[in-house]
């Protein structure tokens, strides 16, 4: 759909009024974020008084229209929530449903294969989502360009590398998900049909190139200039003692909580705030927390492959990163991880004596009444699902807590602090740093449209 005014100039639309000590800055449209909303910043006498992220995209009612549908439909329905991270929605949905269903004893090879190929599919989504954000959305901020088109004029080879990397991520999703957007090959229990051996071999060749290009990406972004802005975050992510988490693990907080997804609602709460259509999530009664790549990196650094740790070290990162402006480096490291993991899985699976190509692979499940919970790691962070179904498999209730909803409060808090730290800058420079700061969180507000109106009011 082509929309009116989508690309109205952003900074060009700033209006600047001087009347006594009152200044007002308006940026009509901030491109390069995923979501429809607005940010309003209130500054009085050079003190930031309020930062509000207002999401005015109407609620999408997915949780409301799922009751009455068959449990097998959950992965296909929820995949429609987001065009960028549909695999995440599918994964959380299938894991929750499989927790309810009783599982007929199955060959361990089948279970292991399904687990591995789900991780492989998820790696594809991390690659395409992270690369889109790194190259097309965020890097132009650091290098002083309006957008990726302007960036490409001066750095053709770099943008071409980004496009090729993204294409590989898309290809992974098409290969194992059936199509790039809103994949259709994931089912409760496994996959409807796995790709042919030829398709897997072709993909493997691309992964070899992608791994090297991912290293070059880390080197590229680590040379950017970063605002000095370290914060003491309550990081929340999945933790898995053996692998960097995608589909499984306990939910862990920096303050020491470690819970199964079943217990999420006992510790994390959603509240409605008047200024936004999206629910605000808190840890405990009122604490902000931060999900996403930086949280995953904090809790799971030890599980990264050696090459990723070395690349992180070369990029100047320690075992934790507290500066959200450097989230672009952490995303780049996760891209390298995704290529390493995908390559390892695909090589192992193709060497296996177990025949799986070009056919359906799924667990034998028997539906029963119950409640299922699951949390997986979407590119933007923890994605939690809960479903209740009856003995026929009809969904009775559904609840979904996406990552951007969980990060809303920390985004508002950080934007206020970044604004305060830069309050003496002129309007144009302040606006630029705030736009860049918003993109630190790769917000996916709808989970996915493209308008953010930024308004700075100085009194």
């Amino acid at each position, binding site marked *: 759909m*082509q929309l009116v005014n989508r*690309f109205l100039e952003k900074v060009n639309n700033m209006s600047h009024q001087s009347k006594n000590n009152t200044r007002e800055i308006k940026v009509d449209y901030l491109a390069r974020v995923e979501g429809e909303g607005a940010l309003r910043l209130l500054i009085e006498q050079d003190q930031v008084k309020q930062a509000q992220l207002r999401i005015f995209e109407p609620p999408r009612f997915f949780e409301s229209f799922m009751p009455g549908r068959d449990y097998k439909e959950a992965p296909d329905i929820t995949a429609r929530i987001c*065009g960028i991270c549909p695999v995440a929605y599918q994964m959380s949905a299938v894991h929750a449903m499989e927790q309810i269903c009783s599982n007929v004893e199955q060959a361990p090879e089948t279970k292991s294969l399904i687990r591995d190929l789900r991780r492989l599919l998820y790696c594809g989504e991390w690659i395409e989502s992270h690369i889109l954000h790194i190259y097309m959305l965020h890097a132009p901020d650091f290098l002083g360009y309006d957008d990726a088109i302007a960036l490409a004029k001066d750095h053709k080879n770099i*943008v071409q590398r980004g496009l090729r990397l993204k294409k590989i991520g898309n290809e992974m999703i098409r290969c194992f998900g059936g199509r790039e957007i809103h994949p259709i090959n994931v089912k409760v229990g496994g996959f409807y049909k796995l790709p042919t051996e030829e398709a897997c071999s072709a993909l493997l060749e691309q992964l070899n190139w992608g791994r090297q290009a991912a290293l070059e990406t880390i080197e590229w972004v680590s040379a950017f200039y970063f605002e000095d802005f370290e914060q003491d975050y309550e990081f929340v992510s999945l933790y898995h003692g053996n692998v960097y988490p995608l589909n499984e693990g306990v939910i862990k907080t920096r303050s020491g909580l470690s819970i199964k997804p079943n217990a999420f609602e006992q510790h994390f709460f959603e509240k409605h705030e008047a200024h936004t259509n999206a629910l605000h999530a808190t840890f405990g009664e009122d604490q902000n927390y931060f999900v996403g790549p930086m949280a995953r990196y904090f809790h799971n650094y030890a599980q990264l492959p050696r090459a990723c740790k070395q690349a992180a070290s070369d990029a100047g990162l320690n075992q934790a990163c507290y500066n959200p402006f450097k989230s672009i480096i952490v995303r780049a490291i996760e891209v390298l991880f995704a290529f390493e993991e995908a390559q390892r899985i695909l090589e192992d699976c193709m060497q296996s004596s177990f025949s799986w190509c070009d056919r359906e692979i799924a667990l034998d499940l028997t539906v029963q009444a119950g409640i299922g919970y699951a949390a997986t790691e979407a590119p933007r962070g923890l994605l939690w699902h809960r479903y209740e179904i009856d003995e026929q498999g009809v969904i009775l209730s559904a609840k979904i807590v996406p990552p951007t909803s969980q990060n809303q409060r920390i985004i508002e808090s950080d934007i206020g602090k970044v604004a305060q730290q830069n309050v003496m800058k002129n309007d144009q420079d302040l606006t630029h740093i705030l736009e860049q700061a918003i993109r630190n969180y790769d917000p996916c507000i709808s989970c996915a449209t493209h308008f953010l109106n930024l308004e700075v009011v100085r009194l």
Partner: protein
Amino acid sequence: MSKLLIVGIGNDFRGDDGVGLAVVSKISQIKPDLSVHLSGGDVSSLMDWFSIYDIIILVDAMIQPSSKAGTAQIFDLKHHGLVDKSVRGSTHIMSIYEAVELARVLGALPDQLFLVGVVAEAFNLGESISDCVREKIDTVVEQILKLSDDLVNQSA
């Protein structure tokens, strides 16, 4: 003969956003020999097609309140770009404007590239194409088939 591809773009669960897909599906039924592709929204993959086909026609929904819903407008993207801001935006992950202009900068545009924008009425989630747009689909299909014939003949 030049290779021609017709690409329908949109979301068939978002009201008239699905009109590009509906139009190109209809073309595929009428002319099964034509190369067509249905894109669910990630138009970054358009650049893959740019390097394979000589002539590409994109079909997508557009908002233009001054025009009647269901009518089609044709934009020559190869020679003029999307200077009209009313057709630059997108609900897709990367807009057509971004994909085309990026390809232009990278020197990756095909010989001929056209966008057929079908004026939409509503984009409500979970709804199908509105009646006033649906009843114009056959007319749009005819326009596109004529355009494709003309382009292929010109390049022959």
